[in-house]
């Protein structure tokens, strides 16, 4: 079962196999969390949205059909819940109850992904300062650019899948990605200038 596709696991779960559901959750938990936490920018709220995403998967299991890729379906649910959460505004639970994102031992090596993201920066040269700077720059992207950047660079989704998830044409997705990368590149270069200017 470990080698089964997401889609066949989803069908197994629909037919009553809870172990298949657990495999799906294990496979996607981290990546979906990483997407959500960068969208809602709050660890406690991200956990709630992640939980709600999986609960929606359970609720809609009977209606699941193989028309869409499982990941496309999953990220569409997660993204819609993120949008709702953002609209509702301030999170109901005190964020201080949970560890901040930066202390999260499971947080992905984001900096590695950014290094690949086209800035052409020498991996060795990227230190912790740079990572923080980058996190900040990502957080400052406009929502519609940020979500696409994250889905592409952190979650490794294809542009056509992202287009389905966010509900706009693939060309729009690609151009938003270009804008996002430009802004991040600027942020990095600014930092590099500062670093070089420093004694």
């Amino acid at each position: 079962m470990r080698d089964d596709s997401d889609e066949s696991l989803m069908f197994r779960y629909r037919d009553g196999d809870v172990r298949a559901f657990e495999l799906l959750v294990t496979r996607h938990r981290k990546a979906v969390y990483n997407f959500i936490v960068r969208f809602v920018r709050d660890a406690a709220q991200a956990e709630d949205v992640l939980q709600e995403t999986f609960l929606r998967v359970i609720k809609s299991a009977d209606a699941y059909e193989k028309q869409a890729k499982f990941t496309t379906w999953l990220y569409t649910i997660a993204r819609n819940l993120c949008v709702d959460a953002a609209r509702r505004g301030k999170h109901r639970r005190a964020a201080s109850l949970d560890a901040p994102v930066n202390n999260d031992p499971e947080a992905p090596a984001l900096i590695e992904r950014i290094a690949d993201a086209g800035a052409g920066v020498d991996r060795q040269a990227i230190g912790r300062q740079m990572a923080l700077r980058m996190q900040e720059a990502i957080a400052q992207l406009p929502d519609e650019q940020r979500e696409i950047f994250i889905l592409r660079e952190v979650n490794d989704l294809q542009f056509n899948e992202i287009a389905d998830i966010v509900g706009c044409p693939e060309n729009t997705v690609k151009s938003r990605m270009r804008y996002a990368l430009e802004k991040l590149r600027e942020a990095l270069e600014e930092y590099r200038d500062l670093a070089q200017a420093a004694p």
Partner: protein
Amino acid sequence: MPELPEVESVARSLRPRLVGRRVVAIEVSGLSLRRPIERERLERALAGAKAEGVRRVGKYLLIDFSTGNVLLVHLGMSGRLLFARPGEARAPHTHAVFRLSGGLELRYVDPRRFGVLRAYSAGELERSPELSVLGIDPLAPDFSVAQLIAMLASARRDLKGFLLDQSRLAGLGNIYACEALFLAGLGPRRRTHRVGAAAAARLFGAIREVLEAGIRNRGTSFSDYVDAEGDQGSNQNTLAVYGREGEPCRVCGRKIRRVVQGARSTFYCPGCQK
């Protein structure tokens, strides 16, 4: 502190004599509970209304009235709802008295005043600050192993803390959380997202089993807890780990340990729980 089985037992003991009666008058002590008791709001919502049913969600009691309004009660640390005759002496710490038709009173007694007593319209109830943050009731018919897996995977904390978090599962408190972990054979400090499907299924069964046993025994009475007829529960006699520090485990014989987690005592068996 009353947990799900105690609140369920109170709900069951309220139904026979409460349903069908009208609220004739309401008196309050004037002292604040966790939030102030708003007498005018209670009167507006409940005076003259007939009680039609008693429900429970998590650790909350909900009394439904003919007007569509609902009385929400949380017993806090030490709250009791008790039936009494109008002439009977009032217990100390009686903070609200509902005079009912047919010569009966329902009294809310709460020495430590951590409870909640509040009226809502049916429409407001779901969005109330009390219920809107509540997670799934573990005895709800649609609660499933898959849901528990989803919840465990989404939280990143220790199992014990997870079980006490009312925004995830609503109804477990310290006693039943300790007992459920023992029955499932899971250590209280295990990380939630590392609990696999088999262990999650055991935990699911254990949660329901300890809660249902608690209800069958009409609650756990250590000091305060009694139902609306003033009767104690007997579940305290069946606990496997809670309150048994240093005593031998009934399964493996090793000594039950107590640790402090999140400012609360956790009792567990080092032999049976991994």
